[in-house]
């Protein structure tokens, strides 16, 4: 067990995690998930917001088992390897706000950092602009860290039970999904057309989600951290995981005939490149200020990190706001109120970046 524990912290461990995620994401797409969206944490949380009726965009409503699996897999891993440690209290409401704007940025581009890589690996040229925006946003975040930015220290919670609530919420979501699918209880909202209606079989999605949650908790896989550590410390450890994800997804896409290079008519994507860039710049900045990409925030939530759970909740609420107020983009382009929301997001993130500084001891 100790050897396994150490293995995933090694270079080989992070590379293997990236390879698994890249291959499994492309396979999930083959098994029914939307094109270039085998796994997209932002899109899948948006679908969950839809399944709960928090927004009524009928084409993006599904209780995605992958997200549930990520949290439960990380929870299981943290328990087994004694890393389950309920904690929180590091500027939770600011993290909530960052989660909202991270989602607004991601839904302007139509993807999280994972999907940015998957879109690139599927040949979607529009994702180049999102990718550049992501790196630029993370770069802006690192400037704030250089200036002493901090959301403050977390505290360990007095009870071990304090960290189970987010995993329990995910388990409840799973129960609701199974009740609806097998007993037609009609509690959740389900898309009958569009990306929300496209999904791999539930138990395959769930199993893959749990598996990825487990190994990503062990290896600390983080797409934002990959670029942040390269920029801040010239440390390539996490970047190797991201590179592996991209290469594995690219090769798997070639094998499965899912590679379609070009800019026009790419699946669940638009060609408004300025907004692809700015959307991911905002998302990258918000992820950097919150200390993790959306996947990493889910894995941390599974470890009992209440602050990460609040960020993830912020993202779900951000998806509802995006779709309810004409902010989210669609394949036709950005929404009527996307520009205002993105500008507001930058103003809020910059205020947070400039004002949140801890006096160094």
């Amino acid at each position, binding site marked *: 067990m100790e050897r396994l524990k150490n293995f995933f*912290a090694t270079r080989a461990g992070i590379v293997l995690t990236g390879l698994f995620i890249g291959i499994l994401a492309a396979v999930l797409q083959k098994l029914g998930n939307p094109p270039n969206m085998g796994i997209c944490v932002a899109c899948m949380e948006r679908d969950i917001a839809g399944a709960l009726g928090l927004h009524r965009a009928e084409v993006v409503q599904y209780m995605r088992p992958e997200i549930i699996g990520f949290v439960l897999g990380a929870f299981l891993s943290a328990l087994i390897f004694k*890393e389950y*440690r309920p*904690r929180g209290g*590091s500027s939770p409401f600011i993290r909530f706000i960052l989660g909202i704007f991270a989602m607004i940025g991601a839904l302007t581009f139509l993807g999280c950092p994972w999907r940015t890589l998957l879109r690139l690996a599927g040949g979607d040229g529009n994702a180049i602009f999102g990718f550049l925006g992501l790196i630029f946003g993370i770069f802006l975040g690192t400037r704030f*860290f250089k200036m002493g930015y*901090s*959301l403050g*220290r*977390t*505290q*360990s919670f007095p009870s071990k039970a304090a960290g189970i609530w987010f995993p329990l919420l995910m388990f409840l979501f799973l129960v609701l999904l199974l009740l609806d699918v097998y007993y037609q209880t009609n509690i959740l909202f389900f898309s009958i057309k569009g990306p929300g209606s496209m999904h791999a079989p539930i138990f395959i999605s769930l199993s893959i989600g749990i598996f990825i949650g487990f190994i990503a908790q062990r290896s*600390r896989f*983080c797409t934002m*951290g990959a670029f*942040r*550590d390269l920029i*801040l*410390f*010239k*440390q390539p*450890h996490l970047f190797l995981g991201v590179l592996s994800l991209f290469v594995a997804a690219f090769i798997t896409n070639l094998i499965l005939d899912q590679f379609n290079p070009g800019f026009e008519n790419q699946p669940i994507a638009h060609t408004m490149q300025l907004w692809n860039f700015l959307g991911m710049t905002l998302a990258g900045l918000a992820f950097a200020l919150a*200390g*993790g990409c959306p996947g990493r925030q889910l894995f941390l939530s599974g470890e009992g990190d209440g*602050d990460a759970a609040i960020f993830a909740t912020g993202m779900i609420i951000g998806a509802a706001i995006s779709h309810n107020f004409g902010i989210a983009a669609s394949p036709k382009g950005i929404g009527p109120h996307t520009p205002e929301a993105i500008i507001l997001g930058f103003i809020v993130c910059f205020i947070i970046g400039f004002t949140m500084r801890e006096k*160094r*001891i």
Partner: protein
Amino acid sequence: MAEIIDVRGLSCPEPVLRTLEVLKKLDKGEVEIWVDTNTSKENIIRAVNSIKCQILEIKEEENIYKILVKKG
């Protein structure tokens, strides 16, 4: 007595950032870094090794890892 850098409870990348800031300013000597998660411990070991400082000892005491690092 080694200087203590207490980075317990801080989110990534602050533990590594603060450790490197202190180590870069240090001409030579020892510092002890206090962390409270395996993730921070792994990140600091990786960062310290990359700047050619030496890890002398890692102690685990009641949910604290104390990493003793020597420079020079």
